């Protein structure tokens, strides 16, 4: 009897040990992604769809492709509520998780990304600021671990002015026109001012700016001033409740919606739906396509939602911020794939994946393979250029849905690049950073 008990004990221990070893081995073949999200608080309507889109794409990659290069992507969400201090806390909590630590971090907040800029560089973890954050971080020699693809706010401002010019009959027709900027009174909202001022000198339009105090619940004074000024075009750099309030106030003073253009963070469904019919005709720039028609989105519906998964409700799949979350995840996982080609199909460190980001060449052909043609703009990131030269589209709210109304617009990168470089070098001087020599970095990599 005693012998039997002993034998059973040995077998049980062996099974348990086997399971444990198997589990550990599986865990060892995982790539961990920390997810700084905001699903609560005043900015939740914008944070939720983005977080859902991002997570759903990672789930798709795991379900359909068995991860990237056979390495499963794992992730853990941490709630920042769009607070800088909580963002830093989340980053510190998650940066050592997984077999190789955090792969990269996407905070979806200009404020949090400012707070993480130096930490991520010190920890050698790529900081991804897809269409937000410091525009001058596009200059790779000074910011090796910060990435701003596919376009910065400065590029967004330039693209919008190009669009406005096309509507006026050419950029030369902007001379004498009045263009006003309504902006969130924060680091984010102030980002396009220098570019718009520079462009006003180049094209001769009269530029006026109106700051809106956080959170932007009340803007009556601003819009009465705009009514008095009678600008030909109004641009907006808003976020959260500021956007919907601005659209309503613009309608209240009778401003034509077709001459009101927001940046891509003023371009989602929650920004216009509260305004109801008054928001019809409002326009906004975007760095992605819109809708659920793209094959990659259909794959998410098939492989993730079709099997009972998915973070959003099906009706939300294809909304602007959901799609942007998907696109952000596409860029990130493609960088991982590129890094794996160099370092092997195994869990990689942030430092190794940074190499992938610096060699992220997402061509139209590859985008088509990914089922994202029209959804994702091609980019080519290098050691020097962390923006990657992405393009911008203009979309319009028809009262029910956003519709893309232009093809991709190419921002004038030559002018912008000089601005990025000058600003980044000033930052480097202030912080005592010696810029990298990218030719040496590339040579060493070969």
């Amino acid at each position, binding site marked *: 009897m005693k012998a039997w008990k002993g034998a059973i004990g040995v077998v049980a221990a062996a099974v348990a040990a086997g399971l444990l070893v198997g589990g550990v081995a599986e865990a060892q073949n995982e790539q961990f992604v920390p997810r700084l999200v905001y*699903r*609560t*608080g*005043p900015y*939740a*309507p914008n*944070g*939720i769809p983005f977080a859902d889109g991002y997570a759903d794409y990672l789930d798709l990659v795991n379900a359909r492709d068995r991860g990237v290069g056979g390495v499963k992507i794992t992730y853990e969400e941490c709630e920042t509520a769009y607070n800088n201090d909580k963002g830093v806390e989340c980053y510190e909590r998650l940066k050592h998780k997984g077999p190789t630590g955090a792969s990269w971090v996407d905070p979806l907040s200009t404020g949090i990304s400012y707070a993480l800029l130096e930490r991520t560089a010190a920890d050698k973890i790529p900081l991804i600021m897809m269409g937000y954050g410091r525009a001058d971080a596009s200059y790779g020699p000074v910011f090796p671990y910060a990435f701003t693809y596919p376009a910065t706010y400065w590029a967004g401002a330039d693209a919008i002015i190009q669009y406005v010019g096309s509507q006026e009959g050419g950029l030369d027709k902007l001379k004498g026109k009045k263009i006003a900027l309504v902006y969130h*009174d924060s680091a984010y909202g102030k980002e396009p001012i220098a570019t718009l001022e520079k462009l006003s000198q180049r094209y001769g339009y009269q530029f006026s*700016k*109106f*700051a*809106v*105090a*956080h*959170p932007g*619940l*009340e803007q*009556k*004074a*601003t819009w*009465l*001033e705009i*009514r*008095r000024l009678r600008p030909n075009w109004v641009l907006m750099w808003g976020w*959260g*409740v500021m956007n*919907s*309030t601005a659209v*309503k106030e613009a*309608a*209240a*003073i*009778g401003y034509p919606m077709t001459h009101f253009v927001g940046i891509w963070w003023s371009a989602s469904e*929650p920004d216009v*739906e*509260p305004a*109801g019919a*008054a928001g019809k005709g409002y326009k906004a720039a975007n760095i992605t396509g819109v809708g659920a028609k793209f094959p990659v989105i259909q794959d998410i519906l098939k492989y993730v939602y079709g099997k009972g998964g998915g973070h959003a409700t099906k009706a939300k799949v294809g909304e602007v911020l959901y799609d942007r979350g998907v696109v952000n995840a596409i860029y990130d996982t493609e960088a991982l794939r590129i890094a794996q080609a160099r370092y092997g199909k195994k869990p990689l460190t942030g430092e190794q994946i940074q190499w992938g980001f610096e060699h992220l060449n997402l061509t139209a052909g590859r985008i088509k393979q990914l089922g994202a043609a029209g959804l994702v703009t091609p980019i080519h990131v290098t050691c020097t250029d962390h923006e990657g030269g992405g393009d911008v589209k203009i979309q319009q709210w028809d009262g029910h849905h956003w519709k893309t109304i232009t093809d991709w617009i190419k921002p004038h990168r030559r002018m912008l690049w000089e601005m990025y470089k000058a600003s980044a070098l000033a930052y480097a001087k202030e912080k005592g950073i010696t810029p990298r020599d990218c030719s040496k970095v590339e040579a060493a990599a070969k």
Partner: protein
Amino acid sequence: MHFLYTVLIDPFVQIAGDPRFFVEVLTGGLLTGVMYSLVALGFVIIYKASRVFNFAQGTMVLFAALMLVGQMEMGAPAWLALGTTCGVMVGLAFAVERLVLRPMVNQSEIILFMATLGISFFLEGLGQLMWGGDVHTLELGIPSGPLTLGGILVNKLDLVGAAVAGLLVTALALFFRWTSVGRVLRAVADDHQAALSVGVPLKVVWVIVWTMAGLVALVAGIMWGSSLGVQFSLSLVALKALPVLILGGFTSVPGAIVGGLIVGATEKVGEVFWGPALGGAVENWFAYLLALIFLLFRPQGLFGERIIERV
């Protein structure tokens, strides 16, 4: 020198040069101020009767609006959703009295204030758990859109808000002055101990004032929700009510209205005529600056009770 000119001279030159625009800004500010007053009233009702500064009032505005719009989105007719929401706010008042206030009898005011902080977080979480974090559009048929009166542009919704606030203040003033419950509330506000000694049931009083504050929050939620959509930012309107309370006094219902008018008018006029010289986006701190100046000279606010404590 240029700065002094832009602050001390230029605004007045602008006002004199375009008085119609000044009146338009002033009118817009006054109407906005009335909307702030709607939120401030809830604070006043609770503070007046219990000396509790209810930090959760802003969240109650959000919670009430969420309850209403959530039911309407599920297909409930507006009248039914309105009735149910009123019921929920009454239930909330009972729950707050039974679960939060009663166990804290005889605790200091700061402890009760901290408790309301907890209520605020709880309600915000509960609201999101029940109705999600999306923006909800509230359509109750309240007129909105621009209207020109004598060359002055106003928003119809703001006019309705002003009318609602006026009715609410009148109703509350009549209630406090002419009903027996109102007299009880005033007695408690004057002296808790004396009121208790003559048999005024404090628990009932608390339920009544929290119910009233809940219903005022519902009205504020409807007006603000119709304007902005029902979203979590609504709870931030409480920040706008604080300078109103400091100006008008924490214990005065008419003070909440007058305070709202002053704050609304000052911040809008300040933003438009002094904002450019001060870097713009001044309206938030402008209201607090004004409140601070009032605090220095009249700590009890315009209509608040002067508290004299002898040691």
